[in-house]
């Protein structure tokens, strides 16, 4: 059953559930952060409308910096601004930020310990019609291997807002991943959010499998849990918004209780979220695992729904995978 402590919307499975893109959460969150702290600045690489950076620009024009289509410049200029006391958010598509400017982020932000906040938009295959070039599937891998880097992957717009506000309040170098398409808004303002803490969405007295998901895949995992319960398979669902540092205690507990784990991410399976979980569990609590995600291939054009279905990330696929693992 749904874990009441998650304080989700009244009926997360309602067909009328509101939908919103996580990038909208960035827009709201960064305006909120800007109101709280005048050191917050936003740099954008010629994508202010689609990244929602323009919401900040409208509110704080003097703290919005247009750098043009220049992601390497954006990252390094931001590092300089951080060195002079600002808290810079840099916004572009994840394919270019951190895809294009990886080494700049590595050297001038992470190694240099600057509070640069890297906002990777349009991540995952759910970008849709733009196709493989713009469907970033390697960003979590690139960012989580960097020392000093915090990696957040919020599940809906409300949590994305909280993640942005939380990131602005620390001196950490942070990566946050956002999606383009509208996804279910199933958490609320009261839903707990803390960097480094996973959130139990669904619990069972005797779970046979734990579904560990990140980003908007956590909603699909929750839907899969409902379907599994209807078929008599008890499971647990843990939403892991912080991919680094992992909530080791919560993940190990979930694995120990269920004995089987399915990881779900809209990202390459190699070196991504599932790999991070496997690194932890192989050390602390080896269990049988299945990995849902993109398996060593690039995306393609299509609607977000078609692509989520094609790459095996729908609630139906998650439930089928869980059943195979339990069988």
């Amino acid at each position: 059953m749904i874990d009441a402590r998650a304080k989700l919307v009244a009926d997360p499975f309602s067909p009328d559930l509101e939908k919103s893109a996580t990038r909208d959460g960035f827009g709201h969150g960064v305006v909120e952060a800007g109101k709280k702290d005048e050191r917050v600045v936003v740099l954008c690489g010629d994508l202010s409308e689609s990244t929602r950076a323009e919401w900040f620009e409208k509110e704080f024009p003097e703290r919005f910096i247009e750098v043009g289509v220049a992601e390497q410049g954006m990252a390094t200029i931001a590092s300089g601004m951080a060195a002079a006391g600002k808290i810079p958010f840099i916004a572009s598509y994840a394919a270019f930020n951190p895809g294009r400017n990886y080494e700049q982020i590595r050297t001038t932000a992470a190694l240099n310990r600057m509070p640069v906040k890297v906002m990777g938009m349009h991540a995952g295959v759910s970008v849709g019609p733009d196709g493989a070039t713009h469907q970033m599937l390697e960003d979590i891998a690139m960012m989580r291997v960097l020392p000093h880097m915090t990696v957040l992957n919020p599940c809906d717009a409300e949590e994305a807002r909280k993640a942005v506000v939380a990131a602005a309040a620390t001196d950490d170098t942070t990566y946050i991943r956002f999606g383009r398409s509208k996804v279910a808004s199933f958490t609320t303002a009261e839903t707990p959010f803390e960097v480094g803490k996973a959130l139990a969405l669904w619990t069972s007295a005797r779970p046979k499998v734990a579904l560990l998901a990140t980003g908007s895949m956590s909603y699909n995992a929750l839907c899969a849990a409902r379907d599994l319960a209807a078929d008599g398979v008890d499971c647990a669902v843990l939403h892991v918004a912080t991919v680094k540092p992992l909530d080791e205690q919560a993940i190990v507990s979930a694995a120990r209780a269920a004995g089987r784990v399915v990881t779900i991410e809209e990202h390459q399976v190699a070196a991504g979220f599932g790999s991070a979980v496997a690194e932890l569990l192989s050390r602390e609590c080896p269990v049988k695992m299945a990995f849902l995600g993109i398996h060593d291939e690039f995306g393609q054009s299509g609607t977000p729904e078609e692509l989520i279905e094609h790459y095996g990330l729908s609630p139906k696929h998650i439930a089928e995978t869980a059943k195979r693992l339990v069988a």
Partner: protein
Amino acid sequence: MLHAMALSDAELEHLDTQAEAIRETVIRMLVAAGSGHTAGPLDMADIFTAFYFHILKHDPRNPGWPERDRLILSNGHIVPVRYATMAHAGYFPVEECLTLRKFGSRLQGHPERTCLPGLETTSGPLGEGLAQAAGIAYALRMDRSKSRVYCVTSDGEHDEGNTWEAVMFAGKYKLANLTAIMDRNNIQIDGHTEDVMPLDSIKSKYESFHWHVLEVDGHNISAFVDAVGEAKAIFEKPTMIVAHTIAGKGVPDIEGDYTWHGKPPTKAEARKFLKEIRTMGGKVPHEYA
């Protein structure tokens, strides 16, 4: 450390003496380290001396002083000259220079801000310093700071796109509190800059990106100080000072048979000469020699 800009004869003599002492320290530290870059540190000794002993508003006992001027080193591989100059200026004991590149040292092979107070940035990967300097200049201007930002760059790192992104940015936002310096020694790892990837005319390139450009003899401390003074008087644009230098300046054995300002050497000549410079005539092993 406040100062008048123009140099008296006595001040100039003092700075020349300092520059020589800094060159000696650079050579001692490179020999002790057994690896590292030689040409750039030697040819930038005069300019670093001018910065730390005359131009910069700074306090060696309080490296984080908010009102300090910022000196950003973009081409981090020449950091021995910065370490040596900082030590002579009183940031840390000169003898610590001999720990360069050794395990546990604050003097990392390429500069790391978090290891040694006063470094401002972490650098080494080329083409990133000017953008960071521009970001610092932009942020300082937002805060109405009177501090100035100086950024030392190499000519070779102007091959990097990241550099030109910063050049455009600083020009667009009229960052008049930013002065960049190019160590125009005409060499990079694979040879003469104009063979590897032609850069001329640097002056017209920067001017077309809305910068003020000055060209000076990088070994004439007076001329360099005057150029920095002129940059301060330009209120609408950032300034680039192209400092023409001789690679390895100050060490007769490795100072060229020919200067790098005139007729370019052949590729083979350039390689042979570069090897001499990088090894200081065989004294310092070098990974790119």
